[in-house]
Structure formats: C-alpha cells, structure tokens
C-alpha cells in the first residue's frame, strides 16, 4: 500500500496545481476532449459507412462467383468467334460433374431486344432474367408473396414469373397482391407466382455501381422458356454459389478450368467473385477511414500542443516553487514526475470527457442512421491509453526542463 500512498500524494499535488490555474486547465482538458471525440466520431462514421456498403454488397450473395466468356479470346487463326461461349450442355455438365467447392448454380439468360411488358394499360420497364430455381438462394433474395420457381416450372418451360416490388407497383398498384394474375411479355402471357422482398442498394446505386440494375425492378422467368423465346440455347453467364466464402476463390479456379477443359479450343473464360469485390471495397473503405482518422488526429495533436504550451508556461511561472521543492528534498525525478502527472491528469480528464462526447455522438448517429454503432470496451481502452500517451508526450519536455532547473538559480528567479 506504500506505493499507492506514494502515487496518491503526488496525484493530489497535481490536482492542487491544476486547481490553481482553473481556466487554463479546463481549456487544455477541452482541447484533448475535442480531439478524442473527433477521432471517435470519425471512426464511428467510417464504421457506419462500411456497415452500409457491406450490407448492400451482401445483397449480391456473399459467396457468389460469376463465370463468363473472356471476350479477348481468339482461335489459333486469330479469328474472333461469336456467341456467349456457354450453353445448356455446359449447364448440365457443370451440374453433374463440376467443382467440389460449388453449392448452387444458375444460368443467366438475357435478350438483346427489349420486350414490352404490360398488364391492361399499365407498363413496366423491368429487366428480365432467365434463371433456374436456385437463383433466389444464390442472390440472398426472399419471397414475400407466393413462391419460388419449382424445378418442374423450369423443365416444362412454364410461363411463370417472379417479380420485384417496383414491377408490382408499376403493373398492379402499390401494395396489391398480384399472385395468380397475368402479365404480358412481348406476345406471351406469364402468371405471377412470386414477389421478391424489397432490397436496398441505394448507396451502391448512388455511386453508380448497383450491378447494372435496380434490384427491385426485376422480372425472373424460367431460363428454358426465355431461350425458347430467344430462339437460342445460349446462356449469357453462370452465377454460382461457393460452399463458403473461403472457397469462393477455389470455386472460380475450378469452374474456369472445367469450362476450358470442355470448350478450351474455342473459348477462354473469366470469373469474378464477390469476395474480391468485398476485398476491394474493404481496402477503399479502410483507406477513407484512415484519412478521416488522420485528420481527426490532427485535432488531438493540437490538443497535445495545448498541453505542452500550458505546461511550459506553468514551469516558467513556478520556477521559484520548483527551487523551493528541491530545497525541501525533491529530487529531479520527483519534479519530473510532478509535471508529467499534471500533464497526464489533464489529458486523461480530457480523454474521459472526449470519450463521453464521442460515445454520445456515435449513439446519436446510430439512432439517426440505424447502423449498430455502440462503443466497445476496446475503443474505451484505446481512447484512454491514447490520451495518457498524449499527456506523457506533451508533458515530457516541459517536465524535463523543470526537473533540470538548478535549485539556486530557480530560487533566485523573479
């Protein structure tokens, strides 16, 4: 307990000294508080931002892998071949024998021409995709009314459609239930069997990368029927789901190798994985966060310089006191510790207040935006450790100058 008494006594001395200069102490405490709060707020904002981006990226299906023809491929005679390089034979072969890392697979079929989509006198400009019954699972899509395609719908080319909420609004009116009703695509009639749950890609859309389409303005139909309407067995690309996020890269290697073994004489293939997109997004976001934190750290640095300034002034003003303390038995180490403690008390108080301000603003931000942004114990520990370090760093030079004052000269100082 002796050492506790030792530090308690010295801490009290620091409090007395700071109390002597109340206004100055309060100002420098605030300087640190603002710095800590700024760093925390920036951290919270960037954490919120990455939460937003990742939750939107998730709507593409985290484990997704896309495989499509590499348009730069050329045959040995350097003639460019036509076509998508993918067809139903590839699909059935992939389903049977491809790829240990593959969980699910859907062909994606599109049309060059835009068909008119209508019900009565209402029209839709939705994008039509030909898919199979695994599409929804792969894309993290959920049905709110009706049902998904059944394998038999695909096999028998049944004229059924799963549509997004914007399509419902355009063709049937907001909030109505269109299950069992008909829509016309070109000259054909489709029965609506399911409605997709609303998906938010507002943020990605706002930066121009919503994956090329509005997620809520989609019409899904059996790819087999779409091929028949197109008069072609071509498949534009495949979307696959890896068994896990970790196996996404393996799957993209496996599927590329599989397809090139089958068709390599004519075509080469390329793959994309959600994992690489997420990696890229992660790098960009942490870069942005880093810049923000650096900017906020500058205000912390200014707070530290504030402490250094008032400690220097204090050392000068208390020169005689320092001489006196040495005369009555204080060593250099005692004086060094005294002034360091004063700086640390300032910065730690600032850290605590900044923590409260920063936590408060994060919580308000969380309520306004809906991101989960509760400050963690780790953040609290880091904020306190950082403030103590700022205190030591900014108090050290003035404290060392105080400790090295010659007692006689200090006592003589006017």
């Amino acid at each position, binding site marked *: 307990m*002796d050492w506790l008494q030792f530090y308690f006594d010295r801490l009290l001395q620091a409090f007395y000294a700071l109390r002597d200069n109340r206004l100055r102490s309060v100002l420098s405490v605030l300087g640190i508080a603002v710095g800590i709060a700024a760093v925390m707020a920036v951290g919270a904002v960037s954490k919120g931002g990455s939460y937003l981006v990742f939750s939107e990226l998730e709507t593409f299906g985290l484990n997704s892998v896309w495989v499509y023809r590499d348009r730069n491929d050329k045959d040995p005679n350097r003639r460019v071949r036509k076509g998508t390089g993918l067809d139903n034979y590839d699909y059935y072969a992939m389903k049977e024998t491809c790829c240990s890392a593959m969980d699910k697979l859907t062909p994606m079929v599109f049309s060059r021409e835009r068909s008119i989509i209508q019900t009565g006198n209402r029209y839709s400009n939705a994008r039509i995709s030909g898919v199979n019954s695994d599409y929804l699972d792969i894309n993290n899509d959920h049905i709110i009314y009706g049902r998904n395609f059944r394998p038999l719908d695909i096999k028998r080319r049944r004229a059924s459609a799963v549509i997004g909420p914007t399509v419902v609004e355009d063709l049937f009116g907001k909030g109505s239930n269109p299950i069992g009703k008909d829509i016309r695509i070109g000259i054909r009639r489709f029965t609506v069997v399911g409605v997709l749950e609303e998906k938010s890609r507002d943020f990605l859309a706002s930066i121009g990368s919503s994956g090329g389409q509005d997620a809520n303005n989609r019409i899904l139909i059996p790819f087999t029927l779409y091929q028949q309407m197109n008069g072609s067995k071509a498949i534009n690309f495949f979307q696959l789901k890896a068994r896990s996020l970790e196996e996404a890269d393996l799957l993209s290697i496996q599927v590329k190798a599989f397809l090139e073994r089958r068709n390599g004489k004519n075509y080469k293939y390329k793959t994309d994985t959600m994992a690489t997109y997420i990696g890229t997004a992660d790098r960009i976001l942490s870069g942005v966060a880093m810049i923000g934190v650096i900017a906020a750290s500058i205000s912390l640095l200014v707070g530290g310089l504030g402490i250094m300034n008032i400690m220097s002034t204090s050392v000068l003003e208390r020169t005689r*006191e320092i*001489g006196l303390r*040495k*005369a*009555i038995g204080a060593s*250099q*180490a005692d004086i060094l510790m005294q002034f360091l403690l004063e700086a640390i008390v300032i910065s730690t108080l600032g850290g605590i207040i900044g923590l409260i301000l920063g936590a408060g603003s994060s919580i308000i931000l969380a309520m306004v935006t809906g991101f989960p942004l509760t400050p963690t114990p780790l953040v609290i520990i880091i904020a306190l450790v950082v403030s103590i370090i700022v205190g030591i760093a900014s108090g050290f030079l003035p404290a060392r100058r105080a400790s090295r004052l010659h007692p*006689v000269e200090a006592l003589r100082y006017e």
Partner: protein
Amino acid sequence: MISLHNIHKSYYMGDVTVPVLNGIDLSIDNGEFVAIMGPSGSGKTTLLNIIGCLDSIDVGEYSLAGEKINTLDDKSMARIRSQHIGFVFQLFNLIPRISARRNIELPMIYANVNKADRYSRTTTVLERVGLSDRATHVPTQLSGGQQQRVAIARALVNNPDLLVVDEPTGSLDSKNGKEIMQLFGRLNADGVTIVMVTHENDIAACAQRQVHLLDGKIDQDTA
C-alpha cells in the same frame, strides 16, 4: 558536524568568471547557532547554499554529519537535504493557495512519510511555532511573521540536524523580526543547530557565534 575546507566557488557568465568564495575554512559543531555576516554581495548566500547542499563547489572539501558532500549526485544531494537540512528563506517561499498544513507536509511527502505520521508531526511543529490555530489558513490569510513561522515549521518537520536560514527577518517589521529571533533562540536551546545569514548586527547578536565574510574570505570569526 559541518566541516568546510578550502572552499572555492565562482559564477560563470559567458566568458566572465565571477569569483565569489576564495578559500573558506569553517567548522561548526552540533548545537551551535552561527550568524554569517558581511556586506551585500560578499558571498553569504552562496556559502549558505553550499552548506545547505543546494549548490556545488568548484574546489575544496565539504563534509556534513560525517558524509562527504562534494562528490554526490543529484539524487543523494536531494536525500541529504530531505533528511538533514531545513531551509528558511527571506521571502518565506510558501506555495500559495494551499493551507499551512499542506505546506508543512510537503517535505514529508518527498521523504515518504505516511499519512498518519504526517498529520501528527505537522500538528506538533505547528504547536512548536505557536500557530496551532492557523493550520487551515492559506499563506495570503497570514501575516508576514506567521508566514515565516509556517516556513520554519516546514523546515523543522523532518527533524533536520541543521537549520539553514537566509535573512529570516529581511521581510518583516522589527516586532515580528524579534519574535522570529526568539523562536530561533528557543529552537537552538532545544538542540537545533542553526546557520543564519544576516547583514544586521542586532539580528546577528542573537547567535552565539558571528562569522564575517569579506571578498569571499572569512575576515573575522568570534569562535
């Protein structure tokens, strides 16, 4: 108790050397009350600071209570000041805005005295200097004489072997000055060794022994 031999001390201001002490030999025994006198600038304070282990010497030997001082580092000098010496200054040098009791406790904090002992020892020295009823007053609430008593209590609180006193009445009126000198007389009668600098004859007369400095040398010693 104090033995100074051939002490030289100069101050250096840029290229200029200002010699202050030019070969001081002085011995002081336990229980003595010595006044160091001399004209202003004769080196009295410089000599006193050396005796108080606050300043270093250029040439010579100094031993205090059997310990050789001239070779010690900062930490050991601080320890000696803490254990063996009590300082009293002309300008009191109390820390403003903390109470008399907290001022008196300071030397014990540096000597790592525990809290309970600090309290009782402070009470005892406050009684000894006649200020028991002023313990919670801050310096600005005390008269000059009372402030100097607090400073003396602070100097006494670690039970030093030696009181080192520089012009203790220089900031006081003659009545308060007299009372302070009576206090020193009583402390000396209780066995405290005192070395006091003054340039006033009637103050010096309170001591048993007078040492006169002139041009950095001892000119006259009544011992």
